[in-house]
């Protein structure tokens, strides 16, 4: 009778404990996989971020120094630096943020792996054995069916441990999520500053290249305009065709419409072979600048695409974390819980029956 009461009590306790001891491992796995993707992609993004930030800062310092360059006699500066605290390096902080998220994820994984369940079961077995040894040392008979009793204790303590881990997991996810979401939000917003610095660099490179290219077009136009047609073998049309062919791939950066016409002017010296050579050199330089303009555009677009993909990864990680949090509040799937309960109840029943049989045998 007493055994039946104990058994039903133990099973009821297990039903309660097991029903809340489920860590949402599928959602955790999805979140960790999204996070691992972000960690991998972030390294390449941060390398470029560091490079463009450093270049922009160096350029800014150079311009400031240029503006502040003293005119007239140079006086010794009395300005001193008052801050002894080094400013944290921007890129290191971003790497640390990602590493801290990774540490947090590893902590969650440790809880989900439940290694302490085995440890606690071993300790429980040891405690029961120690208690039995004490009884024997005191002169009493050893507890019959101790092996099975240890099984009962281990099952119960293991389930309690799982519930404890689930509670810690729940607390960690709920406490860590708002901070991680803020970090991810900051990294998503950061892409805007990253692309802005790259756009500024690309714009400046483009201004320089377009300016050089158009200057060559102007030189070429002037070269032809300052001459009249040669007596024979006029190369003007060929040069004009080559010029427009060179400009065609970069038509979008030109304000002047294509085709550009080259025309001679009367009462000027004839266009000679050395002029033709100069004209061909100018067209070659225009072609070269055009290629550089396209390369500059392509390079920028590739980074923009990389930052878009990186943003998508960060958002996926946000979503996965959101799903993990939702899973904490959602009742576990009934079939999974009932399957677990069936396993636990069966092993407990076997242990209790073994214990009862051993006791009966000793009486």
């Amino acid at each position: 009778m007493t055994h039946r009461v104990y058994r039903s009590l133990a099973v009821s306790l297990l039903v309660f404990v097991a029903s809340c001891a489920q860590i949402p491992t599928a959602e955790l796995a999805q979140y960790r996989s999204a996070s691992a993707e972000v960690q991998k992609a972030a390294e390449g993004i941060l390398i470029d971020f560091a490079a463009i930030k450093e270049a922009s800062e160096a350029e800014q310092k150079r311009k400031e120094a240029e503006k502040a360059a003293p005119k007239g006699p140079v006086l010794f500066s009395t300005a001193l630096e008052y801050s002894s605290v080094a400013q944290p390096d921007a890129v290191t902080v971003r790497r640390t943020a990602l590493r801290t998220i990774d540490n947090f994820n590893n902590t969650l994984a440790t809880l989900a792996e439940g290694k302490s369940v085995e440890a606690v079961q071993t300790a429980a077995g040891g405690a029961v054995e120690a208690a039995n040894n004490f009884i024997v040392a005191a002169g009493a008979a050893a507890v019959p069916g101790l092996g099975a009793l240890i099984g009962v204790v281990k099952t119960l303590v293991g389930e309690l441990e799982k519930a404890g881990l689930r509670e810690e997991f729940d607390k960690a996810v709920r406490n860590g999520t708002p901070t991680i979401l803020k970090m991810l939000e900051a990294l998503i917003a950061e892409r805007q500053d990253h692309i802005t610095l790259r756009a500024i660099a690309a714009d400046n490179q483009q201004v320089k290249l377009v300016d050089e290219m158009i200057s060559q077009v102007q030189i070429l136009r002037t070269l032809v305009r300052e001459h009249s047609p040669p007596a024979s073998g006029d190369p003007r049309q060929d040069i004009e065709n080559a010029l427009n062919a060179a400009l065609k791939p970069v038509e979008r950066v030109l304000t002047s419409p294509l085709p550009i016409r080259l025309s001679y002017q009367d009462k000027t010296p004839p266009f000679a072979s050395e002029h033709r050579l100069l004209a061909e050199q100018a067209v070659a330089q225009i072609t070269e600048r055009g290629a550089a303009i396209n390369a500059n555009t392509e390079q920028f677009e590739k980074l923009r695409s990389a930052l878009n993909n990186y943003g998508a990864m960060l958002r996926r990680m946000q979503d996965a974390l959101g799903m993990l949090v939702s899973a904490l509040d959602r009742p576990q799937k009934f079939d999974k819980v009932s399957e677990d309960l069936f396993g636990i109840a069966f092993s407990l029943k076997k242990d209790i029956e073994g214990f009862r049989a051993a006791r009966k045998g000793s009486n």
Partner: protein
Amino acid sequence: MAQPDGNSIKRLYDEGMSEVFKIVGSIDSTPEQRRVARETAEDLTAMLVKHTLESIDGRTALLAGLIVELNQVIAAVKKEPPYAEALGNFTAIVTKAQTLFTEDVKNLT
């Protein structure tokens, strides 16, 4: 006077740069116009770079604070729940009690 926000600085930069490109991209612009355009590009660049670097610095401070917060959450997680330790202590106490008891029995006999 209120400080211009990030959007208005970027808009100003975009509008200014668009004019710069119109001048440098025209075969009819004069050398003087081109020089002014290049200088304008430099000024616009300095303005937007300054603002962007300030924005990055602000985010660095924010992230540094969030790192501290998350580390506190990690530190607060008990990876070793109390049962293992409590059971270990219990075993040690019982074993010690058993030793003392055995010695007492020996002393009495």
